[in-house]
């Protein structure tokens, strides 16, 4: 078997797929370079990311499957799951034969798997729309930390831009150490070395004057809008899984 390796970008994957088609390779497996364990029996092929080649594959996908296919595959790619590159490749091979989208063929295994992953991505993206908790810092920036299961932050950009058009904000993915920064005009991807990714919230001395008071009000409200007689712990954790509590000010202990 031939193992085709690429860096972990979407363009990298498309470049790799380009090479597989171009060289007419048979019996291949596409693997992101960090997910690969070398084996004695397999031949390894390293593919460099090439924007031109990637663009040609993207164009091909749009030609046969439409734009929605490309977005769909991109979203699945953001899951960072090890099996996704191969699934995308399998899907594309069929797409090039059929010459029309098979995205809704729920009787095909690869499609069902990709649809499932896409659903997971959608859920995570939606969770981030909900679970971002901005903290107003002393310099007026609204700053939030998140640690989503998948790399969904790029999908959230538009939602937050539409919503908070009149405030400076930054959402920082502490797991992947990058964030989106909005400056009233546009959104930039930033890496901020000054952010301590180990903390779950911003230290009190960096916060705006009334920030702690609002955090407390929110937590209070959260507790008082609960109906004791209907307590349902299981349902609660199902909707707000524990791994997110760290960054939700109504769930963590406010030690101010």
């Amino acid at each position, binding site marked *: 078997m031939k193992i085709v390796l690429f860096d972990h970008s979407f363009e990298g994957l498309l470049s790799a797929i380009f090479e597989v088609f171009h060289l007419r390779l048979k019996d291949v497996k596409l693997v992101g370079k960090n997910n690969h364990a070398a084996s004695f029996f397999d031949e390894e092929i390293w593919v460099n990311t090439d924007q031109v080649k990637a663009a040609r594959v993207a164009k091909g996908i749009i030609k046969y499957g439409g734009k929605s296919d490309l977005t769909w595959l991109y979203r699945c790619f953001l899951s960072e799951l090890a099996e996704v590159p191969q699934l995308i490749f399998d899907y594309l091979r069929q797409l090039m034969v059929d010459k029309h989208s098979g995205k*809704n063929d*729920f009787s095909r295994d690869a499609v069902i798997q990709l649809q499932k992953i896409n659903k997971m991505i959608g859920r995570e993206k939606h969770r981030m729309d909900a679970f971002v*908790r901005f903290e107003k810092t002393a310099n007026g920036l609204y700053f939030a930390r998140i640690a989503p299961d998948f790399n969904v932050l790029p999908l959230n950009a538009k939602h937050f831009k539409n*919503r908070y058009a009149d405030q400076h904000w930054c959402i920082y993915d502490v797991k992947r150490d990058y964030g989106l920064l909005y400056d009233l005009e546009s959104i930039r991807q930033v890496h901020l070395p000054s952010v301590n990714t180990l903390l779950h919230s911003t230290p009190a001395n960096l916060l705006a004057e009334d920030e702690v008071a609002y955090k407390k009000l*929110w937590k209070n409200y959260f507790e*008082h*809008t609960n109906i004791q*007689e*209907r307590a349902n712990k299981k*349902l609660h954790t199902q909707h707000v899984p524990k791994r997110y509590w760290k960054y939700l000010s109504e769930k963590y202990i406010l030690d101010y």
Partner: protein
Amino acid sequence: MNFDRIKEKLNILADAAKYDVSCSSSGSKRTNNKKGLGDSSGMGICHTYTADGRCVSLLKILLTNHCIFDCAYCVTRKSNDIKRAAFKVQEVVDLTINFYRRNYIEGLFLSSGIFKNADYTMERLILVAKKLRLEENFNGYIHLKSIPGASDDLMYEAGLYADRLSVNIEIPTQNGLKLLAPEKNREDFLKPMKKVRNEIVKYKSEKKLIKSTPVYAPAGQSTQMIVGATNETDAQIMYTAAHLYKKYNMKRVYYSGYVPISYDSRLPAIGTEVPMLRENRLYQTDWLLRFYGFSIDELLNQNHPNLDSDIDPKLSWALRNLHLFPVDINKADKKQLARIPGVGLKSVYKILQARKYRKLGWHHLKKMGIALNRAQYFMICDSRDFLKADMSAQQIKSNILTQGKSKYKPLFNSQLNLFE
């Protein structure tokens, strides 16, 4: 701002508002305007969930819990000895804006006890919404309560600023209302509802001609009924709901299991369990009415005035109508598919899409995630396994119940025994 005082008020007025179930923030079309704050054009978002598992989407508070009425089922009734408080208009505005900016909420749900009279109260509610929209350029979601008995002019104005308006019917039957809230009458609830419905219709038709017509209550109207406070049947509740959907173009009717809050002998005693299973069955019925093409008399009628507690209403209907089954998954149309127990609308979509490519067998359906434990008795597909032929309704039901694992199972036995 005096945060300690605000905190105290917030606690009292959130406590008083929490029995209102509605927390939806979807269905509005208000987009961000001139780089202002907020946008409620997308889907609704639940920003968190309380320990009872209910969604927190809006800042849900009363403007005040002072009230001139004495409705037995309500915590803020006049005769109840509780702490009272009232927000100033500006305080509500500040809270909403600051919570919204931190992405805590989707918007505001403002209700109120009735002080002085209906119009005076309604005016204050409108004032908050108006301030948010005009002074703060706030485009988030606003849900205002229509105060029963408020004048038409005020209801008209409310719709200009709010995304949704709601009046709670609370008690589904006339007799119940007479018993628990003798000072109120049905007409007072229906009057603002009618006005808003008419305005929505009018604005919609104007919008077709003139594109710049402003939005009027774009997320429509909703209402709520308390379940289990009086001895109403499921049929009475659902026929009322169906009537409201039809005649008043309601977006939603909510069903709220009564949480005992009073020693009043007319009501279930404190400590009585909240009828959550019943609430769940009513919502299932509601969905069948709105999305699955069922009509109310198919699900509830004189022979079946109450829903089954141990099986869902669709399954219950199917068992009464076995002559309509089995349905061929590979040929049936959308409507027929949607009537198969265990097949929801998402499954219907998947089946319709997938069968364009090939005939579907059991293994396809299983992989799609269709609840075959129920569905298998009501369908045929591309397979020779028709083992389910000629089973009686009773057999099917007991098969499903023994194989299934409902979270409500502990409740079934006790409730079943009651009727047997």
